[in-house]
């Protein structure tokens, strides 16, 4: 009862109230959605203790048992605790403990700028390579679907650069007006693809997603879907 029925009832009540609240502008329903996000943020901080705890446990045991690459676990733990201490105690913060945690000049901000930002930026930048290798593979399109994807991608890719007009100039210079006209139309074709078939596909996907979400949400609210609650036993 307390382990299964109560959680299902809570889901039902909270879900229903939030749906109904959408139609009631009056207090306290009007901003119930925002209140919920606030509640969630607060719950998430508490939950972080579980996640952070797990991170420490995994790496401590790696070091303790001298598993492969245990040296790097020391680095992770060091990074974690130094950053945590720098943030929680606002070490080196010019305005002391009252200051903003990200205030310039603090150890937290320094670590963020010299280590966090380049790591984050570089990991993100790896995408350039991956997007290229993905396009390269797409070039060996195996079926109709892949070919359509490829052609659309290629036209848009070209259309967003000055390449078509340069090529057109080249052909015009060489006296091949037919090719020049064709390449001059690439930007128009780009716009057409973006505004017409792309838009249509986008809409079909979005409407589908909406119906999927509605049905999923109903299954959750009505307690038809309860996998996330786990088992009855301990």
């Amino acid at each position, binding site marked *: 009862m307390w382990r299964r029925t109560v959680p299902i009832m809570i889901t039902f009540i909270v879900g229903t109230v939030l749906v109904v609240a959408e139609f009631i502008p009056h207090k306290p329903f009007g901003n119930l959605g925002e209140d919920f996000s606030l509640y969630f943020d607060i719950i998430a901080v508490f939950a972080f203790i579980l996640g952070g705890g797990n991170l420490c446990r995994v790496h401590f045991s790696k070091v303790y048992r001298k598993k492969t690459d245990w040296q790097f676990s020391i680095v992770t733990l060091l990074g974690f605790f130094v950053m945590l201490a720098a943030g929680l105690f606002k070490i080196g913060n010019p305005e002391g403990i009252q200051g903003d945690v990200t205030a310039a000049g603090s150890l937290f901000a320094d670590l963020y700028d010299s280590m966090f930002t380049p790591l984050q930026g570089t990991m993100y930048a790896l995408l350039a390579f991956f997007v290229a290798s993905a396009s390269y593979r797409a070039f060996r399109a195996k079926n109709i679907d892949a070919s359509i994807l490829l052609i*659309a991608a290629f036209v848009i890719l070209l259309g967003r650069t000055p390449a078509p007009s340069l090529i057109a100039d080249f052909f015009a210079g060489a006296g091949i007006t037919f090719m020049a006209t064709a390449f001059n139309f690439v930007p128009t074709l780009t716009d057409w693809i973006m505004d017409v078939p792309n838009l249509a596909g986008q809409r079909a996907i979005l409407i589908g997603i909406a119906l999927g979400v509605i049905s999923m949400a109903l299954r959750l609210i009505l307690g038809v879907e309860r996998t996330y609650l786990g088992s009855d036993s301990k």
Partner: protein
Amino acid sequence: MGSDLIGVWIAAFLTLGIMSFLYKDNPWYKFSEAIFVGLSAGYWFASLFWQSLHAKFWANWSPAVQSLFQGQFDYNLLYTGAGILGLMMLLRLIPPIGWISRWPLSVVVGGTAGLYLINYLVSNAVRQIGSTIQPVVTFPESIGWINSGGVIIGNVLVFAVLIVSLGFILFGRNTTIDLPTPTKLFFFLIALVACALGTFYSLSMPLNLTGLIIFMGVFCGLIYFFFSKEHTGFFGGAATVGTWFLMVTFGASFGYTVMSRMSLLIGRIDFLLVEWLKVVN
């Protein structure tokens, strides 16, 4: 100045460490990865602690409790609920009563379900249907990309898409439309002639048919997502046309993103060459 220089060198060291992953997994990458994971986990917890727990919870809740002792009720006292739910989450650390953490989880899932139901109904379903309600044929003037013969190109494309789609629905491999081949050919020829005439007329008559493609794309796309009917016959043909539209959409966003991803790499190379090595000014 000195600390700035150290900062740049550390940044460069880590930048190259991450990039070395492209060659293969190696200790340098492992080191950068380890530092990234530890540092960022610490960063998130510290930020969440100050920005959520302190600024959103404590700053609202503690004054409310104080005023309660002075006999006044403050709306912010409701934050107590969030605190209790958060603590319940932590009960997971005590296995015999760990199941209590399902209650805050139920609040989260219930709230998420409720909010998403409404938001997706309004922003995705209703609004998208509303904006699809458009004329399929118009007199051009109002669409931005129409210039220098764009209408004609557009219409020719429309007819091409129509003919290919029809051909596929009638003769495609997955189709099981139960008609004798001559009849199918007859329909196809009629359509072909109609499209040819349409193309011819669209050269002289200012009609814009792009609405037809949007309509067809949304319609066939939705058919693709239908679960209740097997993808055979007319339905299967339409669903296949639907997947083509989805593929164009995917291709378009793919192509659209490539260049912006390249700029990210340029950003890092810029850092290495200009800020670190000072090769270029």
